[in-house]
């Protein structure tokens, strides 16, 4: 009995699947959609680049500046108090 029910259920599912998949799928959106989609992607990409600039790159630049400043300080310290000179 259960097998019989399962068989009927499966045949109905197959029939409905066939009908749904045979529907005319030729509807298409307007031509402008493509440019709109890629403009949006460009905008998001630009924002991501700016975010990266102000986080990763800005962080790197900041580190370089600190490095340069500290090197400058080290030089002045080392000339002022070079142990070999004394």
């Amino acid at each position: 009995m259960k097998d019989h029910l399962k068989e009927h259920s499966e045949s109905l599912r197959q029939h409905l699947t066939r009908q749904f998949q045979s529907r005319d799928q030729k509807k298409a959106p307007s031509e402008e959609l493509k440019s709109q989609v890629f403009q949006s992607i460009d905008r998001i990409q630009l924002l991501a680049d700016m975010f990266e600039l102000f986080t990763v790159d800005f962080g790197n630049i900041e580190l370089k500046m600190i490095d340069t400043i500290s090197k400058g300080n080290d030089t002045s310290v080392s000339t002022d108090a070079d142990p070999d000179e004394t």
Partner: protein
Amino acid sequence: MVFVKNRSLTFQSLSDQELIHLILGESDRNHCRLMQEELYERYVDKVYFKCISIVKDAHLAQDLTHDILVKVLIRLLDFKSTSPFYGWVSAIAYNSCMTLLKQRSRHRTLDLDSADTDVTEESIENENSELREMQLDQLEKIMEELNEKDRLILLMRYQDDMSVVEIGQILELGDSAVKMRLKRSRDRLAELFKSLGV
């Protein structure tokens, strides 16, 4: 150079997975764009058809298609190459349609989260056995009459051949709730079929 000249042809012969792999590894933005365009062309009509089948409004369907394709192309890193790409795109499309329907239902106070009742798929599908007689033109008419949430779940089940589990994952529902919702939608499909007087 030859590769660049025949680029579009080269891309057409690639599978979705191969194309995505190339996009993710491409550092040249122009090349990346060409490959994204190829993916766009492959899926735009399918996504639009899904959206218009659910919302029945060309303008809204176009807006939804825009959002879905932007999401798909931006989030390619999230795609797990072990599953078919079309399934992933469909899940994003149905999720976006679902979100829209939920937003609308808040205004219309429609119940999208109905009661969870334990039912078996076999017993349910047999209740609507008259649907075996339904023809394609009749289905098209009935789809116009059905409400959005019925169309959504029927499309998932029968057009995309999704399992109850897959539907449940997208709708964030348990198996029984999905089966019950499918039953109700099929009941309405059967009612409308009977009302055609065939």
